[in-house]
């Protein structure tokens, strides 16, 4: 991304320290992750040490330091989904894509994310593919879903 965009985002948030997470999240929207170059720019513009920014990027789960896959597969592991068997579905996805939670497939197509709750417990277990919710999942349904995703990718 252009560093001028980073500057704009920092300015929109008026360089306020309480908006730092929002600033990093807004920047991350462009490339899906925070590159070293981008973090250096934020550090200069905000006058915050780079080490602190790096500390934040590793502490907060919504911030990524590595490039993400083209498609995102998110599984909800909230308590309600867990008691309805989301763990088994996660294993199925990991097995199918050969990737760990938080990781990206070797071909760069899919990133697997696990979130703590999506707040749509009535339709759990839930698997979200690129923002689209798929409710009442089980191991068999998720495999069909993944086969479809692979075909489209």
């Amino acid at each position, binding site marked *: 991304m252009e560093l001028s965009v980073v500057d704009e985002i920092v300015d929109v948030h008026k360089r306020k*320290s309480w908006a730092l997470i*929002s600033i990093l999240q807004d920047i991350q929207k462009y490339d899906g992750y925070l590159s070293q170059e981008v973090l250096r720019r934020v550090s200069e513009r905000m006058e915050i040490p780079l080490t602190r920014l790096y500390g934040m990027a590793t502490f907060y789960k919504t911030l990524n330091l590595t490039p993400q896959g083209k498609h995102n597969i998110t599984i909800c592991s909230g*308590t309600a989904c867990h*008691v309805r068997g989301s763990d*088994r579905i996660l294993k199925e996805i990991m097995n199918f894509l050969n990737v760990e939670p938080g990781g990206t497939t070797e071909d760069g197509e899919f990133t697997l994310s696990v979130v703590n*709750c999506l707040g*749509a417990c009535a339709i759990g277990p839930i698997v979200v593919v690129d923002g689209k919710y798929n409710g009442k999942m089980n*191991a068999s349904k998720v495999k069909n879903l993944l086969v479809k995703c692979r075909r489209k990718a």
Partner: protein
Amino acid sequence: MKRLESIGDLDKLRESIIEKNKCYQKTITICGGPGCHAIGSEDLRTSFERELNERGLSDKIRLIFSGCHGFCEQGPLAVIRPSGILYCKLKVEDIEPIITETLVDDKIIDSLLYEDENGNKIVYEKDVPFYKSQKRLLMEQQELVNPTIIDDYIGNGGYEAFCKVLTGMKPEEVITEIKNSGLRGRGGAGFPTGVKWESCRNASGNIKYIVCNCDEGDPGAYMDRSLLEGNPHLVLEGMLIGAYAIGSQEGFIYVRHEYPRAWENAGIAIEQAKALGLLGENILGSGFSFDIDIARGGGAFVCGESTALVASLEGKAGEPRDKQHLHTVDSGLWEKPTNLNNVETWANVPFIINNGSGWYSQIGTAKSKGTKIFSLVGKVKNTGLVEVPMGISLREIVYDIGGGTPDGTEIKAVQTGGPSGGCIPNRLLDIPIDFDELTKAGSMMGSGGMIVLDKHTCMVDFARYFIKFLKDESCGKCMPCREGLKRMDEILTDIIEGNGTNGSIDLLEELAFVMKDASLCGLGKTAPNSIVSTLEYFRDEYISHVRDKKCPAGVCTALITYTINAETCTGCGACKKNCPHDAIEGVRKEPHRIIDDLCKKCGACMEVCKFGAVEVN
């Protein structure tokens, strides 16, 4: 939007909104809460709007795209007023008949009504058993307002409580009123709100901050999200009253990043309130000034803890600090006195001011007043958000409102309090919803997650779920929490995988004792609760895993095998077709068989078998 210069201006605006709305003969409210939104209520809204416009009905019928109605299980929902007809599980193709038959011709469409367990169709929302036993103080208004339109809130009496405070109450009187109401913090710990406000008001210094905590990290809980998303002005009004009482000029709403509609709607609400002069300098010409900004969280559970949240707002990693000797009300954000309350706590404030502490304190038990919103989820028929008066029993919530388990089997336990809480077994379900009673039973009120568990829930696996969650979320600052959770996770994993030894349970108990005693913040201190409570009530399950290498609930894959009962199997082939691992063989109309070497124990066969022929041992 014209800036309001006085309380009289606001009253005039309210009158004009009420007058303007008189042209509508009916309103239809479509639920846009998190549950309904996930299953397409946004599409319903756009189609409805288009259809009403095309038919020239939009000046007679008002469409409100509201926040959560609560009954997520039956979503997407719509309620037609003034009659109060409830339609469930709506699809886009239902819109045309709803407009033609119900909105124009006043006919009821049977197929869209809620059907109770005896097959009776129920027409009105108020008669549905799910709503009947509730006391919907905070949630009710949510059905009447579009959260992105300030006029809806003002037209329904919004900001009246704030005006009452501005014109006739001294800050100390507001604090006394809140103290008298008995309101306790809804974030989990239940600290008396009025006492907290008083401490912050009395703290030295001119600059004071107030913070609304919407970093709702409890998995399986979405009450705060629904409130802020569905009725943001109610929260803003609560904060305005708090700011006036405490003497603060600046506030923050800290919202989980994963709740985009919550921070978007709160942001819109703040902009609208500023444009009308309900936030900012010299509000309504009173001389009182107060402003609110929104800060997004970064996805860290520990930031729900007050000192960690403060660190996060300061632009740092969200690590808590010791608050035994220095409270945030004395030294919080940028070392200034800071008053933090949870979303639901703030939302209660306008009701207390409007109706008086006497009225409010009549609801509930001796030491827990008002209502509490729970997110009732898990193995329960009626998943949703329920608002109940304090003092109601857990049994009433899970059976009368929740309808019991989906398959009608017995509820094994109810878990409350999120990862810091505990499990309450069926035999104790008659205890009332009360901060102290729940703590006595080994759980806690928490922020409002209520997870129903049935015989298919393994309590050891369930305890490990929370321990693993907390292990991942521990900030790592203090040793007891950081190391203790790792070791607990290892021991529980051993037990689950059949490698538990005689000393495993003793070691868990010892670790629990140390962590409770020696951790720095609430996360570590309460982390062992899931183990302690399951060991207290379900120790036999632990023993089965350790001694007999069996998982009685049939969950822990290392300890179970799936088989097909040849006598009950009809050979329909559903299991074979749905097995993702091709681990089932058999020909049609003859009993099938599971190939153990290929079986990954995913349970898909058991879920699809209509004859109960798949057994787990």
